[in-house]
Structures are given as C-alpha cells and as structure tokens.
C-alpha cells in the first residue's frame, strides 16, 4: 500500500517535471497559457499510460478549447448535434440510447460507449478500427449517421469564426486552423476525462471513504474470480477483442472481423471498461441489454455458442457462460455499483462551458 502511494506521488512528480520542462521550452509569448491541466497524472492503481502526452502537452487553454469544441453543435451538418449530445457527462459520457442518435434522427450502428480513461486505450471503437485518440474524433464528425460533417467543412466553420480563430491562434500561433490543431485540442478534453476516484478506487488505495460493505466485498471476490479474465486491471478491461457469447452468428456486426477481415475475429468486440457501469445503460455494442441484472443473467445462463466464443465462457463440464446463483448475481451487482465515480460524473470542468467560462481570465490575457 505505501509502495502504491509512493508510485502515485512519484508519477505525479514526473508528469509535472515533464510538463514544466516542456512549458519552458514552449514559446514565451504563450507561456502563460501553458498552465498544465494536471489531468493526465497516472492514478496509483492504474497501469502505464498509453497516450503519448508529450505530443499534446496538457495546458488549460487547450483543454478549455477542446471542451468548447466538444460541446459545439455547429460542428454537425445541421447544427444540432455535438459530441456532447451523445456523450453526456451525467451518464459517464453515454446517451441512454441503445443505438446512438445523430443528425436528422439517424441511428448509428452501435451503442455510445463511456468516455473515460481514454489515454489508456490501445485502440478505439468496439472493433478497434481507430488507432489513436486524435484520429477517433474524425469518425463521429464525418459519419452520415452521427454529425455528418466533412472535415474540410468543419475546419471552414472554425476558420470563419473569429472567436475560434483567436483561441486557436493564441495556442498554436497565427495561421489557419487545420486538422492537427483541431484534433489535438479535442483530444486534450477527451484525454482529461479520467475516472479513478470511485469508492472501489479509494478502497484499493486505502483512502478515506474507501469502505466496501460485506456484500460488495463478496461481489468483488466473485468479480475477480469470474470476470477479471477479460475486465482486467483497475481499468476493468484488458483491451482485447473477445466474443462474450451474445450471438451464434454475426450477420449485422462482425465486430473485430469488420476491421481484420479474419473469420477468427467474427463476433469479437473490444472488452469495455466497467467503470461507471451503473450509469451507462443500455449495454453491449448494440445496446441490447437495458439493465445490469439482464447482463448478469446473460453471463449466468444466456451465453450462446459459436466458433469464436471465448474459452473463458466454456466451463470444463461443457456448460456455457459463468454459472452464478441469484445471490451471487446480487453481490456482483452491489460491487459494480461501487465503480460509480462522481469525480467524473459531476466535475464542473467536464460540463458544457458556460458563457461565463468562455470569458475566463486565461483567455482575457490572450491578446497581450
């Protein structure tokens, strides 16, 4: 435990050092904007960060710009849908819909996933087709079912807006707003959406407030026994692609095979994190389960066989799934509820920027 605390502290020190160094290296004119956002420090109970922070140094002005972009519906073709329309903070940046709802009432093919701890992702989307956090924003932006806006048009809108031009120029210097600046600013916001302060986190880090009830502890033990083979580490995912037995065939969505074109990948989807899972219903890539008890019932007795079904869901006695009694499911449910993290769900930093926030002192200094 003490060792864990130390890692956390050292980790923080290192990140700050890195930020400070780069801050000094940065242009003097914008130095006052380079206040670190401190958002990407690695929590003690997390594995190492995957995202290359050095290529997009966190600073307050860029984070705020990213937040503005994230909540700006003008980026969609008809001005009605922002990233935040589908990714709502109170639902851990999901939308409560089975399939996401884009411009003109169009439905995406998939369920909106939570946005949290994205800096630890090795790939994005349920099929892993997107290979970087910056690149990820291009998919919803340009998808006809989502924001339906060609990138060139989005950039033209930003360049036509004096306020955006001023804010981008203050960070990236004069010149047109182009793809890299746009994507990097957005990624400063999305990469800052970190969930590491649930009651469970406090429990494993032995922090104040970190108590689990007896049923929750039983649930944790069951989880470690039955679920953590896939929902691994304190990120609750091993980032692999697995078939968790939802279907026998995959005519509508073949998951990972859509990208790899390999039959062995048919029906495999990225193992999602279970942080804030009590808030992210409905569940699975197509939102087929409305509640957590339905999910648990699926694992207990709804798993369907197929060639690519994950071996962890085949019991030695030939039974499929993860046999669990009703009491065990109750305990698991209690445990899953301890993963709810208000520091993500209610943090005003992640909320839509208010008009007042747009005229914060950080920006007032920009003209100087």
């Amino acid at each position, binding site marked *: 435990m003490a060792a864990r605390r130390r890692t956390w502290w050292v980790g923080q020190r290192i990140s700050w050092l890195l930020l400070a160094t780069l801050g000094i290296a940065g242009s003097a004119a914008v130095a006052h904007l380079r206040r670190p956002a401190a958002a990407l420090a690695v929590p003690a109970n997390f594995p190492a960060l995957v995202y290359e922070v050095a290529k997009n140094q966190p600073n307050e002005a860029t984070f705020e710009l990213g937040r503005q972009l994230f909540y700006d519906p003008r980026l969609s073709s008809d001005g009605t849908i922002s990233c935040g329309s589908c990714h709502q903070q109170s639902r851990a940046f999901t939308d409560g819909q089975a399939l996401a709802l884009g411009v003109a009432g169009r439905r995406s093919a998939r369920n909106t996933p939570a946005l949290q701890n994205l800096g630890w992702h090795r790939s994005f989307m349920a099929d892993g087709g997107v290979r970087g956090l910056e690149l990820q924003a291009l998919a919803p932006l340009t998808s006809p079912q989502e924001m339906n806006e060609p990138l*060139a048009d989005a950039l033209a809108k930003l360049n036509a807006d004096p306020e955006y031009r001023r804010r981008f120029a203050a960070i990236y210097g004069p010149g047109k707003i*182009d793809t890299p600046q746009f994507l*990097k600013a957005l990624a400063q916001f999305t990469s800052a959406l970190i969930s590491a302060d649930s009651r469970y986190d406090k429990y494993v880090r032995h922090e104040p407030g970190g108590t689990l009830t007896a049923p929750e502890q039983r649930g944790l033990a069951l989880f470690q026994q039955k679920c953590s083979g896939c929902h691994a580490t304190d990120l609750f995912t091993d980032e692999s692609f697995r078939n968790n037995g939802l279907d026998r065939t995959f005519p509508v969505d073949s998951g990972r095979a859509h990208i790899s074109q390999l039959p062995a990948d048919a029906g495999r989807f990225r193992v999602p994190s279970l942080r804030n899972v009590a808030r992210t219903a409905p569940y699975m890539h197509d939102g087929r389960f409305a509640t957590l008890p339905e999910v648990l019932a699926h694992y207990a007795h709804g798993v369907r066989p197929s060639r690519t079904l994950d071996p962890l869901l085949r019991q030695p006695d030939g039974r499929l799934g993860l046999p669990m009694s009703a009491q065990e499911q109750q305990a698991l449910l209690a445990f899953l509820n301890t993963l709810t993290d208000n520091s993500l769900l209610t943090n005003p930093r992640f909320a839509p920027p208010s008009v007042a926030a747009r005229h914060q002192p950080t920006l007032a200094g920009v003209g100087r």
Partner: protein
Amino acid sequence: MNNRFPTLLGLLVLPLALFSSCKKDSDTLDSTGSVNFTVRNVAGAQDLALNTTAATTAAGEKFTVSTFEYYLSNIKFTKADGTTYAAPDTYFLVNQEKPASLSFTVPGVPAGDYTGVSFLVGVDAQKTGLTDPVTFTGDLNQANNMYWTWNSGHIFLKLEGTITSTTPSKPLTCHIGGYTDPNNAIVTAAPAFNGAKLTVQAGHTPQLALKADVTKVFDGPNPVALSTFTGAHMPSAQSVQLARNYAAGMFSVEKITTE
C-alpha cells in the same frame, strides 16, 4: 505542390555551372535537379472528362466517372546500372477535379541519366499507420477526404461514378485502401521508359508525362465484371485484386522532355 526552390537554386548555380562545366558533377551545389511530373487521366483512347466520358472495359462494359483520385508516393528513379534514388517524403494526391494536382515536382534528384521510375499507388504502411495528426500535412491531410475515419488509414484510390452498361444503371464505388495483410492494397507501378532517358541536371526541370487509364482498374491480371461488381469500400480481397490491376496497367509514360 509546385516547388519554386529548385528554380531559384538553378538561377544561383547557373553561373557556377558555366564556369565549371568541364568538371564532373561532384560539386554538391549543382549535383541535383528537379523532375516535373504531369498526369493525364484517360479512359482508353479518350481524355477523361468527369461525368461525361463513356469509359469502356475490355469486356465492353461501360461506366462514367464522377470522382477519380489517387495517391502517388515513394517515387524512385533508377539508372541504367541499376542504382536507384528514392525521393524522400514524396506524397502526391492526384485529383481529376483539381487541375493543379495533375502536375507536381520532385526536387533534389541527383543529376544523372535515369532509365526508369517507380512509385506506390497509395501511401506506405509506415506513414498511413501513424496516429499523430501532425504527420499528415499537405496532400495527406485527412481534410482531403481520402482517409477512412472508421478504420484508420488513407484511401489509396477513389473511383466513383455510374455503371451504364447494366439496366438499370448502377452506382460505381471503388475506395481502395488497406495496409495490413491479408488485405494489403499498397502496390507499386513502374511504367516503362521504353529506352528513353530522363536526364536530371541542375538548372533544368525535365518533364515526365504520365498517362493513367481508368479502365485498367477493372482490366488487368484480375478482370472484374462490372455487371456483377458490388463495389469496394474497405480493405478486402477484392480491393487487393483491383489494386493489382491498376498497378499492372494503369500508368504509362507518354513523353519525357528535357527542356
């Protein structure tokens, strides 16, 4: 895409070149030149006019073209002795709709007589596989709409239009890309010089005039019947077939001019 720098350099080194004309090209200053490429997109014997030209495949099937775009990259020049010069960081997007894109200049080519050229039709795996958006500038910028947002990587060739030889006619969509096995669609084209020479020297910009025949997307080692063709939209075995077709026969050298 036009590179003015070599012209300026040429003007600067011209006097030097005059005085040292008897020396070998060992002088670093005047030892490189530029090569200007032009591309003429055609459909068989006709110039390609978007939405108008009736293109005909070897099997007699017909289509019109509304969009025709492709990347030429990793340009490499070969000398008679087999030595090569790979021009660094050469990525050009040719778009039939944008006349300026039908001509581009490769600077810094070592002086000498070249007997061949090759290039990728597409973008190399290393480049297109990058994830930092700052690496995609100019023609590689995703704002050019030649990038798959749901399966990170560039679209190497985009051919859209209408198949008109079927009743009713049907839309034609070929978006070819993919850079990992088994559906790696990165192909190399090496249109022959047929004995001609490309002479590169400081202060001159020889022109390499290429012709690209759109019908060769379907004709080639893997002929594709348009009547049953359902399009290519993602990395797939079909995309690889089409890529092998255009690698084999789409490009030819029309003319080499050394001013």
